[in-house]
């Protein structure tokens, strides 16, 4: 890119940003033209060229921005899927944990407890046993008050997740996804790696953060670029106006002299 010619600078914050030269703001067109030795036409041509270069860079940055904006929802979708798989896997332990807490509560307060399970199938026989054992203990106490504890809404657990996925346009197939500790992530370049669920979540979150950060930087670059485009356009307009003004003055003076002579 051609270096910017010396001119009355308006105090630009940066002289360039990531390879994009800043457009110097001109305080006074006349001073600028005399200092730089340009005449109006060449100054106009120079600034027009600058404008074109800015436009080219702008196109590039916009394309990058579009790519990033498409990538981010993709990563979010992947995160959602991994989170769902993890949640499915996790319900078993949660149920057990709840039942254990329930048993401890019963033991401490020795209340006769009536547990009514809502319409859900608890497939953990273990947890059922723990709850039943506590019930037997509490019936021995003399407390008459009953506490109806309703089990929290428990997701009816199917061991495997059924999912319909697209095989081809308009054709879907069913997949039976077993509970698993690991997922495979497509890293691009024909590479797919297997990760544990936690690692996968961490990696995807990292990618998402990076993508969002790059997008922010890109947006800032675009704003800077647009500012420079605006400054250049205004400069072109001012030089043009100055030129028109000069021509008009030149036209007036000879006619004035001609009128005086006549």
């Amino acid at each position: 890119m051609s270096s910017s010619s010396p001119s009355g600078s308006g105090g630009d914050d940066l002289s360039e940003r990531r390879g994009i030269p800043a457009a110097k703001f001109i305080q006074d067109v006349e001073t600028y033209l005399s200092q730089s030795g340009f005449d109006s036409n060449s100054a106009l041509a120079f600034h027009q060229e600058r404008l074109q270069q800015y436009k080219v860079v702008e196109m590039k940055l916009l394309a990058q921005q579009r790519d990033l904006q498409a990538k981010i929802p993709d990563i979010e979708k992947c995160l959602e899927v991994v989170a769902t798989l993890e949640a499915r896997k996790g319900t078993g332990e949660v149920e057990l944990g709840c039942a254990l807490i329930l048993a401890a509560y019963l033991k401490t307060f020795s209340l006769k407890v009536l547990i009514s399970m809502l319409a859900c199938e608890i497939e953990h026989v273990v947890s059922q046993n723990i709850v039943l054992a506590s019930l037997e203990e509490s019936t021995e106490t003399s407390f008459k008050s009953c506490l109806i504890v309703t089990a929290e809404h428990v997701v009816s657990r199917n061991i495997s997740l059924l999912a319909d996925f697209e095989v081809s346009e308009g054709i879907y197939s069913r997949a039976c996804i077993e509970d698993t500790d690991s997922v495979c992530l497509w890293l691009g370049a024909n590479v797919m790696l297997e990760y544990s669920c936690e690692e996968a979540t961490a990696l995807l979150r990292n990618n998402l953060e990076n993508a969002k950060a790059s997008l922010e930087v890109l947006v800032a670059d675009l704003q800077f670029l647009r500012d420079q485009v605006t400054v250049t356009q205004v400069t072109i307009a001012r030089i043009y106006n100055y030129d028109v003004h000069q021509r008009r003055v030149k036209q007036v003076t000879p006619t004035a002299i001609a009128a005086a002579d006549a």
Partner: protein
Amino acid sequence: MMQQGKSSSSGSEMQVTWEDQQNINTFSRLNNRFHELEDDIKFAKEKCDNLEDAGNELILSDEEMVRFQIGEVFAHMPREEVETKIEEMKEATCKSLEKLQQEKESIVSQMAELKKVLYAKFKDSINLEED
């Protein structure tokens, strides 16, 4: 892209100060952000409407297992879970829609302010309207 044009005046020497230039730059930025916001709002509104329709369909249907889209696949899920998820998504989308609309309003008022200032200084030499 930038809708404002700078029409040349009839040869009058209008001095442009650095402050004016910065005002023009700010106006340009706001204008761009305004158009981006309009697109975002349209998108968010569509999403909100879709979720609303999905919720209604769910109420009308009486299947126990509903296929809920996660990413690219449709997972079989019990109805209540799907209901909860749709509620959550609706809330989140509506909230973000509200935020976007608030930002849009603030931008519109800022642009109106700047228009006043710039028109006061430049009168006819500047055009800040949409084409």
